[in-house]
Structure formats: C-alpha cells, structure tokens
C-alpha cells in the first residue's frame, strides 16, 4: 500500500512537473500558435546587427513560434524612405521598422509607433518570461516617452571611438622619432593639440618612408551627409558645442546673436581643426562616408581616427577584411579643457552614442505577433551571441557573458569602455527635424569643404540657414 502510495505521489509529481515546465519552456510556441501562418515584414539598414536578426534571430523565432519573419535589409536612405512612406501613407506593409536614435523624436511627434510597455501591460498573455525592459542599458532611454514607456526595442548601440594602431604606437623606432620631433611620448592623444601633432607626425612619416600611411582618418565626403554628421556629432561636441549648436530653450536659435552656438568661436575653432585633419588624411577622405573611413583604417592607411563602434569588431578581429587585426587600440576622443567636466556633470557629452531600435508601426496589421518578435530579440538569452557576431550591446546582462568578455580582450577593452564610459557619450539631440536642418545647411557645409566659403563665413551662413528652416517648419517663432 505504502509502495503504491509512493508510486502514485511520484507519478503525480512527474505529471505536475511535465505540465508546469513546458508552460515556461514553450511560451513561444504557445504564444505563437494563435498567429501561425502570419508573415511579419521588417525593414532595416544593412548592418552586421541587422543581418544577424535576418539570418539568425528571425529563423530561430520562426522555428519557435511558427511565425515567419521577413527582414528587408537595405541602404540607410532607402530604409528611411520605405519606412516613412509606409507609416505616412498608412499602408501597413511593415510590422517592424528600424528607428535610428536620431529619428525617434520625429516618429514620436507623428505618433508613428506603438507603445510597447503599455501594450504588454494591457495584454499580459503576450509578455515573454525572458523579456524584461529594465535589463536594457541606459541607451533605451532614448526610445522612451515622458512617462518612461518604451517605443522601440534597442537592438544596436555603439560609441564613436578613437581607434589607434598599437603596432605603430608601440614601435620603438617610431616612438623615438616622435620623441625627438615633439619632445613627447607617443601615446593616444587626450587633447586636440596632441591629436593634431600625432596626425601630422604620421602623415610625414608615411611620406618620408614611402608608405601608404597617413596620420588620421576623416569622414569628409563633399556630397554625403556623413561629413556633416562627423563634424556636428563627433568633433564639435569635443570643443563644447552640443546639440548641433541649436538651443531649443532659446526659440531654437542657432546663431550666436540669438543665443545659439552653431557659429560660435568654439564651433569655428572645431571646424578649422577638423579641416586641417582632413587635409593631412588619406586622399580618399573627401569621398569618404562612415563606411569608407572604417575601410581606410582596416586597410592600415591611417594611424588613428574616429570610427563608428559598429566597425570596431571586424577591424580588430576579422582577418579576412582587415589588415590591422590584433593592432587596434581604443581610447576616448581628444577633448578641449572643460568638456569632460561638462560630460560628467551631465551638461554636455564627449562624442556620439550611435544606435537604433526596432519599433512597431501603429499601422502594422500584425501587432501582437510583432510584439512577440520584438521581445524575442530583446530577451537576455540571445544577447551574448549577437554581441559577438556584431559588436553591439543594448542589454546589461550581455557584459557578463563569457563570450563577450573574451571578445572584449580581442577588442582591447571596447566593451569595457562602452560599459564604463558610455554615459559620457550622447545620441543626437531630441529634435524632430533632423534631416530637415541637415539638408538645409549641408550644401553650405560642402562649400566650406571645397574651400568655396571660409569656415567662419560658412558657419555664419549655416546658422542663418538653420534658423530660416526652423522658422519655415514652424518651430522657431
């Protein structure tokens, strides 16, 4: 009898376990059952993190839920073109769109996106057990509204960092020559003056030794907004010019006369500094966008440079694409005095915190199924492999993943820098008119690059053009 009772209890326990355990393990198949046969469509920029979603996470999600996901990866311009047209015309083609940090304010202003926090609260049956939005890094704050609700699942975040060639910086002959010429030790620059000195030294070194080597990179395309971004998001802030020099609290002023800083002395000094660097950078620089700058560095043509973090991993570790594997050091960008203090006090920032999220358009015809997919890519368990495949971290749990720790060593501490110093960097300012102001001022910026207008006059003209555009858009009264 006792034996039979024991058997019965054991059977009951096994039964209970088997009925309870799959409830958690099979959340995805249970939640996805209702939407089996549905095909979700997403559009994103063709970058390593997005390609990982397309090639790895989307098929895994389909396997787990039966919901098919088609991710369209395209160019940056096309991606926006398609997403905005779809949401504007309310055609509902896309169930997920890539939201770069600088456009979230425009999307929120237009009510283009679904409130993910609220939607999951309203329908708890859709909430995945392994998804917790409190696990995201502070980068997620860019995708929240004033109430703290999340409108995009952060899927990539990088800082634009200062890369330098450790093999060159540690070469005894080079170190000695640098010391002889400048009286200083050859170490990564902390100030603009030091950076310029190192850049000039290496450009001369390359010339004297008939090497294809220059002192710095420069993202200085004369027909692509990449140059505009390099100046306003990566160089001007290191001189203390924040938010593109536009002050929203002063009636969206850009000119010094009206309270802005776009044509301030600091901005003019920053531009002259950068133009000088452009002049001693590799000859491809006037045609270089963010992609070409990474390629230039990976080809071993520059001793140092400001490079988007999304390229750091392949430059440092992919021998098939990069000639400088194992020879890449990372550092914080050079700064003017006072800028670090501003950043630490939260009054400024030292560089660009780039990245994006996946959002759910309000026009989507498959919102519930899309919410499942967004949680799938946001859950802790998928982050480690994703961070190794593409150097992005949006979830705090990722830092402790052994694979990520291993990768951090190969990248000379890039992830550690992201973790410790990420707070010193900032995304684009919270303006809903990014492309509009950029397009209004970029033609003048290109003229400066071509030497058709002086930097001082050009910045004055740009400040005036920015204010005229903001007036035309109705922001400036």
């Amino acid at each position, binding site marked *: 009898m006792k034996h039979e009772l024991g058997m019965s209890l054991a059977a009951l326990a096994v039964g209970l376990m088997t009925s309870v355990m799959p409830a958690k393990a099979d959340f995805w198949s249970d939640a996805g059952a209702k939407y089996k046969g549905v095909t979700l469509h997403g559009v994103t920029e063709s970058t390593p993190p997005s390609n990982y979603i397309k090639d790895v996470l989307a098929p895994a999600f389909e396997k787990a839920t039966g919901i098919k996901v088609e991710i369209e990866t395209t160019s940056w311009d096309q991606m926006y073109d398609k997403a905005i047209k779809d949401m504007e015309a309310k055609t509902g083609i896309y169930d997920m769109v890539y939201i770069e940090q600088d456009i979230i304010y425009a999307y929120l202003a237009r009510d283009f996106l679904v409130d993910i926090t609220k939607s999951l609260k309203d329908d708890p049956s859709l909430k995945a057990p392994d998804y917790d939005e409190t696990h995201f890094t502070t980068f997620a704050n860019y995708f929240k509204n004033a109430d703290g609700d999340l409108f995009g699942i952060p899927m990539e975040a990088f800082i634009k960092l200062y890369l330098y060639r450790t093999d060159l910086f540690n070469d005894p002959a080079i170190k000695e020559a640098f010391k002889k010429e400048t009286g200083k030790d050859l170490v990564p620059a902390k100030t603009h003056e030091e950076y310029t000195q190192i850049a000039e030294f290496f450009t001369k070194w390359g010339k004297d030794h008939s090497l294809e080597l220059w002192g710095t990179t420069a993202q200085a395309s004369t027909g692509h*907004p990449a140059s505009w971004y390099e100046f306003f998001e990566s160089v001007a802030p290191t001189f203390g010019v924040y938010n593109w020099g536009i002050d929203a609290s002063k009636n969206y002023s850009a000119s010094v006369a009206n309270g802005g800083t776009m044509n301030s002395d600091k901005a003019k000094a920053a531009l002259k500094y950068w133009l000088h660097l452009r002049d001693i950078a590799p000859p491809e620089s*006037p045609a270089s966008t963010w992609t070409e700058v990474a390629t230039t560095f990976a080809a071993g043509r520059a001793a140092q440079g400001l490079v988007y973090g999304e390229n750091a991993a392949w430059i440092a570790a992919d021998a098939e694409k990069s000639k400088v594997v194992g020879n890449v050091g990372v550092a914080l960008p050079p700064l003017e005095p006072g800028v670090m203090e501003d950043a630490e006090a939260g009054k400024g920032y030292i560089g660009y915190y780039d990245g994006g999220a996946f959002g759910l358009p309000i026009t989507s015809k498959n919102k519930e199924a899309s919410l499942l997919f967004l949680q799938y890519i946001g859950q802790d368990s998928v982050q480690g492999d994703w961070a190794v495949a593409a150097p992005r971290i949006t979830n705090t749990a990722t830092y402790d993943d052994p694979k990520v720790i291993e990768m951090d060593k190969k990248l000379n501490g890039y992830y550690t820098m992201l973790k410790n110093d990420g707070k010193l960097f900032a995304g684009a300012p919270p303006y809903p008119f990014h492309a509009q102001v950029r397009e209004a001022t970029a033609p003048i910026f290109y003229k400066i*690059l071509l030497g058709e207008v002086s930097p001082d006059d050009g910045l004055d003209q740009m400040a005036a053009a920015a204010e005229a555009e903001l007036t035309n858009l109705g922001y400036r009264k």
Partner: protein
Amino acid sequence: MRSNRVGWLLLAPTIAILGIFGIVPFLYVLYVALHQWNPFGANPYMVYNGANNFRRLVFDNEFLTSIAFTLKFAFFAVLSEVILGYFLAQLFMREFPGRGLFRTIHTLPLIVAPIVVGSVWRLMMTPSIGIIPYLLKSWFGYDLNIGRDATMAFALTVIMDIWHWTPLVTLTLLAALVSLPKEPFEQAQIDGANRWQIFWHVTLPMIRPAILATVFIRLMDALRTVDEVWMLTGGGPGAATRYLGLHIWKIVFPKTDYGYGSATSVIVLYLTLVMCWLLYVALVARRGQKRAS
C-alpha cells in the same frame, strides 16, 4: 456611330490606366504644390499657401544652380550620345568579322540597372581604391579625386551617362538606317555627290524623325537622372552634380518638404515640355513651313 463606340470601348482600359497612373497622380502633385506640407514640421498637416512655393522657387539659388548644371549635363551627354551613336550605327551597317558579337557586347550596358552602373563606376573612381585613379596616377601622374574636383566629377557623370545610353541611340539609329531605301543613295552617287553631301542632303533628312525621337527620349531621361549620379557622386562635390532629379529627391525625401518638392517637380515638367517643344519647332516645324512656302 457603332464603330466609334467599339473604338472607345477598346481604348477604355488604356485610358483608365493612363488616368489612374498618370493623370490622377499629376493632379495630386499639382494640388500638393499649392500647399505647405512637411510632416516633420510643427504643423505636420497640409496648409494651403497658394503660389508661394512657386514664388520661392524663383529666388532659390540652389534650384537655379541645379537647372544650370542639369542643362549643361543634358547638352553634353545627349549631343555626345547622338554623335557617337550615329557613328556606331554606321559601323554596324558594314560587314566585318565579329560584328554580331561586338553588337551584343555594345548593347550590354543597356540591361544594367542605373543604380548598379552608379555603384560600379563609384568603385572604379573612388580615390585610392578605384582602378581609374590608380591607372591615371601611374601612367600620367594625374590625381583624380571626385571628392575634390568639381569639373572632373561633372565630366565623369557625363561619361557614365554616355557609356550607359549610347547603345540605345545606336540601336534606334541603326533601325532607321537599315530601313532606308537604296534608291536615293544610288541616285546621289550617280549625280556625283560626295560622302559628306550624301550624309547632309540624303541620310540626315531621311533619318531626322528617328534622331528627333531619340533626342526627345534621351533629353527627358537626362533631365530626370537620379540613381546613377546619386551613387557616383551623391550630387557633390558641393552642388556640382546635384542635377534636378537629385535636387527634387533631396527636397522630397530627406527633407520631406512635400509641397515645395511638388512645386519643383511641376516646374521641371513644364521646363522639359518647353524644351522639347522648342526643339521640335527648331528641327521640324520650321523646316515644314519652309517647304510649304
């Protein structure tokens, strides 16, 4: 009466398609052109502003510069394509070994998408990594940098267009040349005309309709070129290759200034029609009048 009705019935699908895909969008563009509309403005909705967008265009330096560059581009590209296309068509009229193969190879650029053409040319022209700057530097010591040299960037967009579209001109003119009767040429030879006289007084007048049609098509295409130039130079350096199509694209897409972009499109359409009409008058109508008088 009955045949009229059947005729209209047969035409109905074409008229419906033309109406839906041609006339309705055009009327919508015209409607938008009369409004201020930027979805990322403080007021994201359409606000009627009469002819203000058109007035703004008259004082828009970027637009006026863009017109000048586009006309220059169209002139050099179309003229070169017609001249080169004619000579190639004449060449293909003759028998020579490998003519079929050469004709096929020569036609290949036509089947390449403009965006691909632009990408390939960009790869070839990018300073430091492109083959063309490398060869020019090694052979002639010439530094080709399309990021800095506006004249060279302009010339390259023209050369790229010629490379891509000359085969179309060749094929059209070849078809026209092949269909010409032999008698007028034989008669001209008997009368002692030399090659230039035969070309000027016999060939050219007889293929004029084909040339005109080709010029119209190429002119309209050249005035609205976007993809190839966008890929090769992005409109730069500065505004040196920011042709009208690209200019409108930048206003409408990145800048999302739909009202102003629509007004620009309408004006560009008008300019294209006027240019084609002027060309028609210059080449056909006046000649017809002369003959009649």
